[in-house]
Every structure is written in C-alpha cells, then in structure tokens.
C-alpha cells in the first residue's frame, strides 16, 4: 500500500466516524447516514483495490477507473450546486417575506408636516 492510499484511508476513516457521530446525535437522519456510509465504504474499496474501478469502467466503455470516478464526481457536484442554488433562492424568498412582515408590523404612522391642501405656497407652484 502506497503513501497516498494510506492518507486517503485515514481521511475516509475520519469521515466515516464523523458520519457515525452525526447520525447518532441526530444531526442527520438515519437514511442520510446510511447513504453516506455507503459512499465511504465504496471509497475504501476503490482505494484498497483500485483495479475494481477499472473493471467497472471498462464495462461502461471508459478506459481507466480514475476517469470514471472523475466523471461521476463532476456530475454529482453539478447536481449539488443546483440543489444549493434552489435552496438559496427559497431562503431568500423566505427572508423577504419575514422582512416584509416586520416592516408592516413596525410601520411608523405619524401626522407629519405639510398636510395636503395647505401647501399652495407660491414657490412650490413655480415649477
């Protein structure tokens, strides 16, 4: 096992423990935790036995396993960005509604200077 594989295993191991902790503490649902755990297990397999990815890649008509992983990563990231964007829009929308409610609730209603009909002063009519 080379140095990169060792480091990658340490990182993936850390992420696995993090997923475990998050799921147990209720930060993530069990389903989410399970899906993430699957991803980490797949990562361990790909790190320890890189040829496995090549076998799958060949079946799909891709030469190298690393390429397959790269393509998958790009697609997953694009989907991720889109999901974050949609969620951001929704949060902006909700923020606007909140700000609007506050503005209407806290409206300052006064009887200010210059009521209509009393202001026909000469200088205002010059325009």
């Amino acid at each position, binding site marked *: 096992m080379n140095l990169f594989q060792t480091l990658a295993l340490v990182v993936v191991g850390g992420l696995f423990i993090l997923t475990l902790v998050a799921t147990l503490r209720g930060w993530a649902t069990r389903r989410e935790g399970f899906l993430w755990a699957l991803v980490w297990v797949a990562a361990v397999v790909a790190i320890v036995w890189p040829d496995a990815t090549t076998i799958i890649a060949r079946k799909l008509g891709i030469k190298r396993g690393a390429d397959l992983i790269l393509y998958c990563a790009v697609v997953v990231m694009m989907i991720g960005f889109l999901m974050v964007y*949609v969620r951001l*829009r929704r949060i*902006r*929308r909700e*923020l*606007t509604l909140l*700000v*609007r409610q*506050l*503005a*209407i609730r*806290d*409206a*300052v*209603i*006064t*009887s*200010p*200077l*210059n*009521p*209509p009909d009393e*202001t*026909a002063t000469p200088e*205002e009519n010059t325009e």
Partner: protein
Amino acid sequence: MNDSTTTPERLPDDVRHGTFIIIAAYNEGACIEQVVREVRAEYQNVVVVDDGSADDTFEAAKRYAPYCLRHVINRGQGAALQTGIEFALLHGARFVVTFDADGQHCVEDIQTMVTPIARGEFEITLGSRFLGEMGQIPASRRRTLRMAVLFTRLVNRVNVTDTHNGLRAFSARAARKINITLDRMAHASELIDQVRLSGLPFTEVPVRIRYTDYSVKKGQSSRNAIQIVLHYLLGRILR
C-alpha cells in the same frame, strides 16, 4: 392608445383620499424629502418603504410621509414595492400608485394615471415615457429601454411601449392580484406577466420623466440589463 390624453381635472377628493402612493427608496436620503413633500402636497396617503438604506432615508422620509416602513435588510426594489402595496391594502387603499423615489416622476402625472381607473375604464395603468414627447430621454437610455421593450414583446407577449417605468397605478382589486416575487430589478418584467395573467384591463398612459443627473446616476446601467434578464428568466423557470 388612450384618447383622454388631455390633462384631466384634479381628482375628486374621495378618489384622492383613497389613493396610496408607494415610494420604494434605497439610499435616497439626498432627495427623498423633496419628493415626498411634493407628493404629500397633493395626496395624504404616502407610503415610503425604506429598503434597508444605510443613509438617513428613513428619517428624511418621516418628516413628510405619514406612513414609513423599513426593511431591516435590503431586499430590492421589487420586494419593497410589494411591501408597500400590501401595507396600502391593509389600510383601505382604493387605488395604489407606485412612484420612484429619485424625483424622475411628476406629481401631476399621478392623476393622469388614476383617472382611467377611477372612471372604471381600466384596472391597471402603466406609465410610458415613449407615448408622450420624449425629447429629454438620453440616447443611451433610450436604446437600452427599446431593447427591454423588444424583450418584453417576445417573452411576455404583451405589447407595451415602456416596460420599465416606475409609475404604475392599480385598483385595489388589481393590487390584490399582483404578487411581486422577484426581489430585484427583474420585477418589472414579472409585473407585466402578472398584469397579463390577471386578465384585468390595462392601458398605458403617457408620462413625463425628468432626467436629472441624480436620477440617471441612480438608474440601471445597460450592463446591468443583461443580469436583470438572466435573473428574470431563471425566475420564470424556478418558481
């Protein structure tokens, strides 16, 4: 488009008192006071929505506007207008007029806008600077606005001559149907969509625009326009 282009009589008192003027202001401390004062001289119900300004817009507006609202966080002009419209309806508005804060509109045009609605001829009137004399419109601004109109004809399928005019008037019924969800400048196109979808009768009314150095500087640059178009199109796809 509209034969009654002669300046109408001053609005009857009951109409004038039922008319709410919505002014959305963002960092307009330099001129909001003057604008509000001019409007307030004719109309008692002036609603200023300060869209989270960093300057003294709110304090300046308070001197002459009976209704002052503040967005605690800047949410954009579309959002501020919608806030003002909802507030006006809550306070019994019969007519709602949106009016820009930078002094580019003329107070006399408000009655031109409201009259067709008060007469029951239309539910919505949209101000157009291209229907009247348009000598004062700077050439660069004219070009950008022409593109906006072309865009609107293609995408919104509505035949209007000026899509980005801040002066608009609604009956209470129409105002209730309008719901601006695009917070920033793309709300202008969205509004046209809603006017069309509402199925309510609308018309354009010629209005004058005063292009002062101040209002031109505060206006949207042509470069900004592309961004607004993208924002609007995304808004149509992602509801």
